[in-house]
């Protein structure tokens, strides 16, 4: 009976796919017209001839995320910040727990492979974040990728190895606060630059606008950085990487170690 059901599902899947590929393809087609809003975004993402409207970033997604709808992304980061704060609050009171004796972690083969791959993961993550304004990717994606390296080390080497290497909850909390402060400063930096000159500017402004002639430089030494986008991506990278690492550190505290401390406290 089970086999018959599985066979029917597979057959239905194949027939459905064939239908989509042959008959339905003639009737259901995506529209060839680009919607006017999308046209506007694509036209202005990188457009040096319209300096008052462009973002100067060839990556349309990053231009939308950090410029056209920048405020939304700042709020998203704030939500993520609150989630991390919540998880830290749940893990409060876990101050000290002793390292168990004996060999920790998986075998030497797995550890060696992790040593090689963790470095590569960090390198790829940094490239995703630093090229966020040129190629698909960005601060959040890069940070999430970088957080995989501490997760692997936590599982394969043990929780205490990471702590002994100095990757503690407090350091990560500091890095995350640094990243968030960076986002906050970059959000108002054009406004701060305009203030002494008596020009008015906007929060989350990147390039000059029609009624505000000030903006961050799009190029530094001939390299495209797209004004605020590069700084936003770096800050977000640190904030997200450190935030995820804190959560991983908290969820891998062994329950045994924690319980022992509690019992000691009760006595």
């Amino acid at each position, binding site marked *: 009976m089970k086999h018959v059901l599985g066979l029917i599902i597979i057959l239905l899947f194949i027939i459905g796919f064939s239908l989509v590929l042959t008959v339905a393809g003639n009737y259901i087609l995506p529209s060839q017209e680009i919607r006017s809003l999308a046209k506007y975004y694509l036209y202005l993402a990188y457009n040096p001839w319209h300096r008052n409207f462009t973002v100067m970033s060839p990556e349309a997604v990053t231009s939308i995320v950090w410029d056209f709808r920048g405020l939304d992304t700042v709020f998203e980061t704030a939500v993520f910040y609150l989630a991390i704060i919540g998880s830290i609050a749940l893990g409060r009171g876990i101050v000290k727990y002793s390292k168990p004796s004996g060999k920790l972690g998986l*075998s030497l*083969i797995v550890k060696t*492979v*992790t040593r*090689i*791959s963790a470095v590569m993961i960090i390198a790829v993550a940094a490239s995703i974040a630093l090229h966020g304004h040129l190629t698909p990717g960005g601060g959040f994606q890069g940070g999430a990728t970088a957080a995989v390296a501490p997760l692997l080390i936590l599982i394969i080497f043990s929780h205490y190895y990471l702590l002994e290497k100095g990757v503690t909850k407090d350091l990560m909390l500091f890095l995350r606060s640094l990243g968030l402060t960076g986002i906050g400063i970059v959000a108002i930096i054009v406004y701060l630059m305009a203030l002494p000159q008596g020009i008015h500017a906007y929060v989350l402004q990147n390039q000059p606008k029609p009624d505000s002639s000030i903006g961050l430089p799009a190029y530094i030494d001939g390299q495209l950085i797209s004004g605020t986008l590069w700084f936003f991506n770096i800050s977000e990278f640190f904030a997200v990487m450190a935030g995820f690492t804190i959560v991983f550190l908290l969820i891998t505290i062994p329950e045994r170690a924690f319980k022992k401390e509690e019992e000691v406290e009760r006595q």
Partner: protein
Amino acid sequence: MIEDILVVIGMIMIGVGAVADLIAAIGMNRFKNFYLRLHAATIGTIWGAFVPLIGASLVATGCYCLGSYRWFVTGGGIITAFLVLILAPAGSHALARATHRSGLVKVEPCVVDHLNEEMCVKEG
């Protein structure tokens, strides 16, 4: 001339990969215990993923129609192949070691098990 040789060698490697994947799939279904099936799965990742990836890199290197972009394909293929080569054995090693040490899966049928005699279930 050299590009034709590269493409042919690459195609052969991709073909070998396809055959190896078929063999690995048969092994996954036919082998009798967990450790043997893990062996079949690793055939699928090394012969069925590492070798065709190198083959695809060779095909891309020999294919002048791709222009200078062929080096991107080649580089991506070789790096991915290297990662598969080091990560897949480490993963299957970790799985097999954890399973054997925790004693979750007995070795059955077994001829000899030097690591732990109690895990060895002789046939018959």
